[in-house]
């Protein structure tokens, strides 16, 4: 079952032989220490030579002017302004998770005073491709342009991609996007812009974060994690990342910050857990993340079984029809 849903080792499932396999790599993005500097967005674009995004107009959405992940924006920092009521609601919803038995390993609790800044808070969170254990984009790709790397990450080969867009629909997080030529999805409109635009490569094909595959093969840290000044974006072995994330959430709980919760760290979720895990301070929806992502292949066996039953039923019905008609 492992290859379709539930806990598994995606690298092994992709038939990488042990001598080529590395420990699965991933991110841990701790939004509680993000300062919203967007250095990750810029470093990502610099390294991957992605073109400018957006229309160079103020969105009015706090300090977020790139709005979402897309074909040219592979790291995106969300800004959410919240008042007292929303903070209280986040604490309450988080409390429910804590009492559900979230692990509390090794929690040093030097300061038990309740956290301050209750009037208002400004959440910042750097989003990225999740590099799912069960990646919908990869599973539905008809050309083999998407593949599972030896690091357990999911990468698009732009020279293989034919731009069919199936992966766009296959991603439960809305991460993958085709780099448009300006007709289908106007995230890039040449000639309708203020200022100069760097040349736009790889038009018409699907694009997303590669977890800096080209850096990983040289044993380098991905550009975003390398540039993050506060270590909000951590990079390393996936198992270590998940462990660090669990320790951090326990630490915050011990400080009374019950609003802290993990996202993507549960291998029993609808995508088998994600390669990029997050510590959030509110419900995922607040950050524009789906609350219960589910890979389309997760239901494949059930669907096959049901289809089998249905087919058997139809065969039976046909047989009956012929038999009665005789």
């Amino acid at each position, binding site marked *: 079952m492992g290859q379709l849903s539930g806990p598994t080792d995606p690298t092994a499932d992709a038939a990488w032989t042990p001598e080529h396999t590395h420990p699965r790599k991933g991110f841990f993005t701790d939004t509680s220490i993000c300062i919203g500097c967007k*250095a990750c*967005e810029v470093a990502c674009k610099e390294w991957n030579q992605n073109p400018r995004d957006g229309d160079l107009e*103020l969105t009015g959405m706090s300090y977020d002017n790139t709005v979402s992940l897309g074909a040219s924006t592979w790291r995106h920092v969300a800004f959410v302004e919240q*008042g007292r009521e929303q903070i209280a609601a986040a604490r309450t919803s988080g409390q429910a998770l804590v009492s559900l038995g979230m692990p509390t390993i090794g929690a040093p609790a*030097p300061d038990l005073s309740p956290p301050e800044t209750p009037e208002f808070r400004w959440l910042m969170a750097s989003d990225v491709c999740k590099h799912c254990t069960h990646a919908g984009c990869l599973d539905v790709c008809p050309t083999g342009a998407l593949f599972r790397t030896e690091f357990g990450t999911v990468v698009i080969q732009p020279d293989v991609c034919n731009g069919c867009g199936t992966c766009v629909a296959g991603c439960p997080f809305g991460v993958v996007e085709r780099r448009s030529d300006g007709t289908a999805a106007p995230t890039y409109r040449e000639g309708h812009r203020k200022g100069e635009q760097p040349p736009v490569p790889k038009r018409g094909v699907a694009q997303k974060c590669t977890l800096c595959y080209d850096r990983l093969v040289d044993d380098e840290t991905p550009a975003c994690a390398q540039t993050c*000044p*506060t270590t909000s974006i951590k990079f390393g072995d996936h198992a270590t990342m998940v462990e660090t994330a669990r320790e951090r959430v326990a630490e915050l709980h011990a400080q009374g910050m019950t609003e802290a919760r993990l996202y993507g760290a549960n291998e029993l979720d609808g995508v088998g857990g994600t390669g990029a895990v997050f510590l959030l301070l509110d419900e995922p929806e607040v950050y524009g993340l789906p609350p219960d992502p589910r890979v389309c292949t997760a239901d494949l066996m059930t669907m096959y079984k049901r289809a089998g039953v249905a087919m058997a039923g139809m065969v039976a019905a046909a047989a009956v029809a012929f038999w009665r008609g005789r």
Partner: protein
Amino acid sequence: MANADCIILMGGNMAEAHPVGFQWVSEALAKGAKVIHVDPRFTRTSAVATKHVAIRAGSDVVFLGGLINHMLSNDLYFHDYVVAFTNAATLVNEDFRDTEDLGGLFSGFDPETGKYDNSSWAYADPTGGGVAAPAGDEHGASASARAAGDEHGSGGPALEHAGVVRDETLTHPRSVFQILKRHYARYTPEMVRDMCGISLDDFAYVAHAIAANSGRERTTCFGYATGWTQHTLGAQFIRTAAILQLLMGNVGRPGSGIMALRGHASIQGSTDIPTLFNLLPGYLPMPSVGVHDTYADYIGAIASKQQKGFWAYAENYVVSLLKAWWGDAATADNDWAFDYLPRLSGAHGTYQTTCEMLDGKVDGYFVLGQNPAVGSANGRQQRMAMAQLKWLVVRDLNMIESATWWKDGPEIASGELRTEDIATEVFFMPAATHVEKAGSFTQTQRMLQWRHQAVQPPGQAQSELDFFHELGVRIRARLADSTDPRDRPLLDLTWDYPPDAHGNPDPQAVLAEINGYVVADRTPLSAYTEMKADGTTAGGCWIYTGVYADGHNQAARRVPQGGGGVSQSQWGWVWPADRRVLYNRASADRDGNPWSERKKYLWWDAEAGRWVGDDVPDFPVDKDPHARPDPSLGGAEGLAGDDPFIMQADGKGWLYTPKGLVDGPLPTHYEAAESPVRNALYPQQQAPARVLLPRADNMEAPSAGQPGADVYPFVFTTYRLTEHHTAGGMSRWSPYLAELQPEMFCEVSPQLAAERGLENGGWATIISPRAAIEARVLVTDRVKSLTINGREVQQVGLPYHWGVGSDAVVTGDAANDLLGVMLDPNTQIQESKVASCDVIAGRRPQGADLQRLVASYQERAGVSVTTGTQLVTDPEKEGL
């Protein structure tokens, strides 16, 4: 900062403007430190701080003064530290009168010149008089014009001698401690509430956080940026924090101090080896006409040989500097070529120079690494001034607005200037970026970090070093045959830097010259104490001596994590003498023992007879803590074993400044030059010694209580965003940065939006007595309306990164056009963090109508050139 138990960030927005340095705050947070952000806005710093406290822009002295009062009246100050290491016990002479006695003025104010005579602020001397300044020292008008406060960047001002009178019971009514107590008594929590808009609870929270995190076991650190410096009393904002930190024992210890967060890479370096008109390298003063006419006058005025500490050896530093510049031409016979130095004839700061340009008195102007058309206060004045030049050289990475105002600036659009009428010849010279040249950056910790060149600059782009070296070569070639004595300083300059592989001067050779050397054999000096006044040593900046010790570039050291130990001593090089924490003698008690095991840093090893610890001792290394030499010995010999402040003339930390500041010996609150609020502390409304440049193109809004003040009812403040760099020269041309903050905007509270009909994402026009600009609107709870003296005060936030031009990826109206030019008399820095404005919905008028809008507001408010220029608010109540 990573070692602090509590960090107060105020007058700055560290996470946004200094995101890389903020890693140390993050580290402190991770270790459990409290971080409190006191700022008019809730910023990205507030978002990750333990607590944000909203404050009315410009009221910081009230808040900090309230904290001082709280610590003094509740006996929460660090008594042993204060008695031993500060001037709390020192007596002030009988002639001193405080603001308490004079309605907001200190003694010595001259309403005619608008300047202080500081002789009445002096320490008492044993004979009953005051401890004077050395002969040739300046004060009052002349000191202010030279921004003399800047000179103390590496130590305190001079005193005639260190024979002061002390009362260590701190009870004498003329002791600094008692003066301080009386002075801050009126800075109550209620006053903080009424003037700053900070609740009693929030004030108590901050006061408790600082008190609980100071003392033997714990330390609190402050970080500030231009939110403190850019005020008419900016230096006094910082002084208030310095007093608080000295009272709490938070200077010279791990995780203590006041961090000046600099605005760009190497702004610290540009005051150490200055781009300022009033300084020579190493904070040696620029000589002045009529005051420093002879070499002896000059040397005598820098420091007295009878004062304590290392300034007493200033002559060694001066002679070495002159030898570095003029080599063999600097001899004992010609006073080391002292007369080659130009003399100041008055204030030549950037804004005075702008006024001179407007009056047609300046021919040429080099614009280097700045964009005054966008980045300087009163941008219109800047652009109109450049239009009066004969020539203008702009060296930059991009075709910035300061290079294109003559064809696409706002004044072309409004019709005030026509391109064909402008006679200025503009030269644009492409500049190399920081990765295209080698050199050093000096950051706020005084740390020099060497950058190696990554790639050659493209095309004709050049580094500053290459450009000026080549300019010097060409000018000297032109003057080679000159017999005019005025050309000798140029022709005699040592201009002999060896070329690198590309034929450009080797930057490390410049560093070696700055470091200093023995003239006879070019052996590098390893410490400034090796400098001599007999012409046998040369050195370009005495405080940097040691950076090239042993012929190695110490600034290029890059051991990961700085090696072992808390001082991270193997990363870069820190002036002076590679000391990581300044005044670190204060990390041990009077007897030389660490204040606590937890905050152990430097201590006296009695057996070895030396100061030992984790850092280079900032003290004579073998001076016993119990040494009590005759102070009249002067210099390092005169320092007692409990005088940690070795650059101060009396070896003590100065709670009270008998001299050095030109606008008062103690910080006291005055309202900003433009303010809708009355000063509730004193009859005196504004800083009496502020520098004004009244002109028709630099008019001020009426202050509270004056007719017309309600025409500009809101307070605005300017600031930076992470996504952009200052006036945008390095960021608005980068698509990746431009897309992140693409348009000029203003930030307003929901209340102000409702009052003025502003919509989120819509447009607003902001009008000041200087200009009107338009901006998109962000309505946000991050900006709060504050209750001041019982009435609501609205603040408007304006980032200042955009400018009007046609070359950048993104352009927009410039916030700095709104600002007037009113200056701090110590530093000549403009007040750009608080001013008055009105806000209306919709876009601004175009063309000539724009000026008509500004004029109609001026008319309604009755603004004239004399508005706001009255220095003393109420002479009768202020004893004049």
